[in-house]
């Protein structure tokens, strides 16, 4: 249950009506008694006054009319009428505009939801009084204050007009936090003469906000204005592109198409390589997600109804890198999820250096793997090898170096797998030995462990590891990490505290080497470290997320070409990386020059919460449910508080009329 009116309204009504009523009640009770010789003349006088009072007939009916009015007012109030005029604005109003992907949904009249939201806000700004102030916050995955509290309407209008659509998911928390901060006492202190006594937050959204449940408002009231009516949308919710392990030129593109609307649809799914159409698949009769009346109440994380979500697979041979785009034909409410992008890297054969005093398991494993080159060195050879054989321009000549039972500080930038040893770098230490401990926790979603059955690993002992905080623990025992991944500058270290042999290297420390899980671990570990983690494609990011690209040494800035064709110059950070965060639209972002020529990254929506465009019926925030008013909220306002006030007034009048009838 929610209350549209602030608590002051009923409090005021009670303060205005209850005391007089009680007073009258007590006055009547406290009538003094006086003996009198005869009431004959008094009764006659009272009767005469009653009879002679003007409009006596009307007075008789006045009580009836009043009571009828009271009943009618009550009935009307129960009916929850809405005022079809101008909505009232508080002294301080925060306009919070959702600019997430779903707000780009086309409403069929040529306007997107964001367009409608902007128009509504502009209309409200025009109605601001002289003393009323407002601020504008736009948010998608991040929130921005476009205009702080001001009574300058031109500034507010400019702020609203500057809101641009994004393809990022909607995250309300930051917007509310910003609003809270501006409405807080600390905020007021900066502007003491303009105290913000009460702030109304008007949130213009379609209600599809995944994090709303954790949001709580500290000051003022929150009113949600639901924007949008469109419900029909089909989107690509997943895209997986991978090269075959056995045949690196074979690329499988697997897309999942889901219908979020209430009608059954059929669509063509096109596969484009470097912008050219390569293949088309037909998706027939995608079942509706839900009945039309249920769509608003459907949660995004609800499993897809049967038949509403179908996979589409393409297979092709590709011996070069390529930009893959999967595109849905036809038009629907949201365009951002009709396209998905992936960057396929050229088939990469790894060059691996194995540093081991002698390990036939590793040797056989490496020989069995489809590698471009494999080199076996002893630890002494590794330490004594000339620099040029080990590195080129400060970077390792090998894609991955596997160090078996050897710790070293000779670590040019590159990828390393330590088995029973540690990189001798700052923050990493072997502090002792652990025996007979179970594994406590592990992350089997990580690509390195995704094909490994960790409970099946049996080991006699392992080193106790102390790692820097940024290290990601993949397997954990009670006394610390057993397997961890550490990224530092341009190097990656996959560190296993568990060696394959004991210290004497005469006995096996673990039987893991006999399991296929070890093979999978080594294979996935090599590919993950070598940057071919998902078998042939560079990871894509969500809109709003930043991606990192290693810059060519010596360059101070790079150019990023955005999907809309515009370019932007970005400075290279201290570590020789380019971090780009303005990924607000889906598509390809090309960075040039990167380490190896141009490098392209894909930004995909792939968010079922945003693809479900049907406006939500209600919004649940941590401080309680918020009723969403319709798109035309601005001109509709509940009248029941006014009716209730009127009812109290009528009751008072009725009581007075009744009392006068008795008294006089």
């Amino acid at each position: 249950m929610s209350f549209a009116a602030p608590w002051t309204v009923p409090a005021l009504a009670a303060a205005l009506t209850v005391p007089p009523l009680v007073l009258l009640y007590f006055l009547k009770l406290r009538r003094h008694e006086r003996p009198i010789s005869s009431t004959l003349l008094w009764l006659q006088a009272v009767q005469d006054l009653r009879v002679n009072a003007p409009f006596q007939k009307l007075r008789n009916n006045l009580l009836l009319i009043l009571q009828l009015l009271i009943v009618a007012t009550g009935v009307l109030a129960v009916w929850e009428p809405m005022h079809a005029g101008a909505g009232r604005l508080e002294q301080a109003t925060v306009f919070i505009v959702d600019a997430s992907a779903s707000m780009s949904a086309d409403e069929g009249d040529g306007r997107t939801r964001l367009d409608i939201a902007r128009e509504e806000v502009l209309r409200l700004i025009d109605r601001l009084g002289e003393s009323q102030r407002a601020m504008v916050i736009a948010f998608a995955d991040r929130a921005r204050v476009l205009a702080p509290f001001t009574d300058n309407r031109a500034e507010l209008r400019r702020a609203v007009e500057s809101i641009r659509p994004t393809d990022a998911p909607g995250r309300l928390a930051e917007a509310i936090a910003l609003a809270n901060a501006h409405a807080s006492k600390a905020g007021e202190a900066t502007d003491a003469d303009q105290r913000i006594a009460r702030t109304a937050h008007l949130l213009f959204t379609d209600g599809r906000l995944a994090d709303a449940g954790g949001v709580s408002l500290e000051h003022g009231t929150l009113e949600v204005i639901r924007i949008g009516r469109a419900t029909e949308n089909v989107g690509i919710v997943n895209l997986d592109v991978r090269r075959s392990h056995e045949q690196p030129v074979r690329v499988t593109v697997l897309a999942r198409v889901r219908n979020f609307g209430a009608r059954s649809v059929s669509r063509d799914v096109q596969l484009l390589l470097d912008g050219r159409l390569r293949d088309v698949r037909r998706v027939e009769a995608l079942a509706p997600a839900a009945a039309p009346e249920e769509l608003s109440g459907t949660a995004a994380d609800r499993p897809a109804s049967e038949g509403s979500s179908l996979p589409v697979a393409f297979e092709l041979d590709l011996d070069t890198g390529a930009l893959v785009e999967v595109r849905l034909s036809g038009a629907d409410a949201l365009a951002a999820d009709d396209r998905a992008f992936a960057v396929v890297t050229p088939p990469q054969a790894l060059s691996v250096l194995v540093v081991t005093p002698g390990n036939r398991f590793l040797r056989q494993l490496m020989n069995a793997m489809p590698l471009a080159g494999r080199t076996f060195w002893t630890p002494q050879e590794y330490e004594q090898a000339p620099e040029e054989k080990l590195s080129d321009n400060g970077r390792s000549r090998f894609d991955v170096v596997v160090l078996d039972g050897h710790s070293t500080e000779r670590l040019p930038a590159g990828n390393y797998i330590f088995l029973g040893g540690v990189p001798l770098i700052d923050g990493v230490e072997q502090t002792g030995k652990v025996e007979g401990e179970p594994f406590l926790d592990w992350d089997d979603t990580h690509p390195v462990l995704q094909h490994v059955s960790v409970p099946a690993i049996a080991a006699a002992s392992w080193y106790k590891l102390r790692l820097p905080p940024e290290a990601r623990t993949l397997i954990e025992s009670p006394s610390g990490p057993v397997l961890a991944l550490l990224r530092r500058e341009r190097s990656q270290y996959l560190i296993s505290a568990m060696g394959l042999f004991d210290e004497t290297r005469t006995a096996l420390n673990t039987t893991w080497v006999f399991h296929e899980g070890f093979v999978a671990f080594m294979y996935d570990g090599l590919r993950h470290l070598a940057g071919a983690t998902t078998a042939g494609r560079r990871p894509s990011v969500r809109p709003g997320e930043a991606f990192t690209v290693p810059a060519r040494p010596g360059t101070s800035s790079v150019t990023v070409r955005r999907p809309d064709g515009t370019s932007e110059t970005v400075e290279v950070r201290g570590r020789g990386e380019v971090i780009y965060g303005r990924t607000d639209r889906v598509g390809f972002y090309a960075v040039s020059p990167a380490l190896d020529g141009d490098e392209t990254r894909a930004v995909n929506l792939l968010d079922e919460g945003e693809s479900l465009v049907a406006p939500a019926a209600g919004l649940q925030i941590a401080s309680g449910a918020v009723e969403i008013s319709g798109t035309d909220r601005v001109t509709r306002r509940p009248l029941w508080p006014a009716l209730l006030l009127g009812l109290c007034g009528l009751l008072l009048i009725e009581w007075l009329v009744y009392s006068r009838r008795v008294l006089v």
Partner: protein
Amino acid sequence: MATTINRAGDLLDADFMTRLERLDVVSRRIFAGRMKGERRSKRKGQSVEFADYRNYVVGDDLRFLDWNIYGRLERLFIRLFFEEEDLHVSVIVDASGSMDYGDPSKLDYVRRVAAALAYIGLVRYNRVTVTGFGSGYGPEVAGVRGRHLVGRVLDLLVAMGPAGAGRLTEACRQFAIRHPQRGVVVLLSDFLDKAGYEPGLRYLVGRQYDLYAIQVLSPQEIEPDLRGDLRLRDVEDGDIAEITVTRALLNRYRRNLEAYSRQLRDFCTRRGVTYMFTSTAVPFDQLVLNYLRRRGLLK
């Protein structure tokens, strides 16, 4: 209202009684008394005052033949004299609960008036009846005559206290039944009877008494000093009237009281009843010595 009359001396003091002895009750009509009194009767009788002659008829008392005329005219004439008879003076005192109101109390006031009238009647050898009524008829001293019975009458009046809801009609009916003799009847009451005063007065009028209706009201009834929200309780029947005293209500009350008294006066006038109105604010000796004389009840 507490009474201030606890003994006969409180009703009439000696000085006032002396002044009363000079007064007499006047009757506009001449009534037949049972005994010879100090009053010339309408009847021809045996007094010393010659009235007329008439022809003798068989059976007339031969003692009244005028022999001188027979000697001159040889015709028999009977001498007629004015008969002197006693007068019935009745005072009906309303002793209902409503009379025990006001400052001074209406009941005290009417008892004093009744005592004065009774005293005058007794001193003048009239037959005096004093009757009180409240919820019932009585007490009563009926047909007493002579100065020596003043004490009895006054004792009755002293003992007469407020007695419940007044029943004027019933009291008048009883009086009319019990006292068929004509005479002067003075009814002292506030006439605030919810059953109405008309039927009661009709009983008295029907007996052809020389009737005087004296309405006595207290200043508190004529100009109520009420204020605020009140529950007015009728001292007689406990009836409640809830009022909020306003100027309009007071004006309406005054107009109603005026109209009520006017109706009573008109009712009395049409039936030959002498109506008098007095407030207890008027000193009762002034009422008796001046007002009642002016209105012809006393001379």
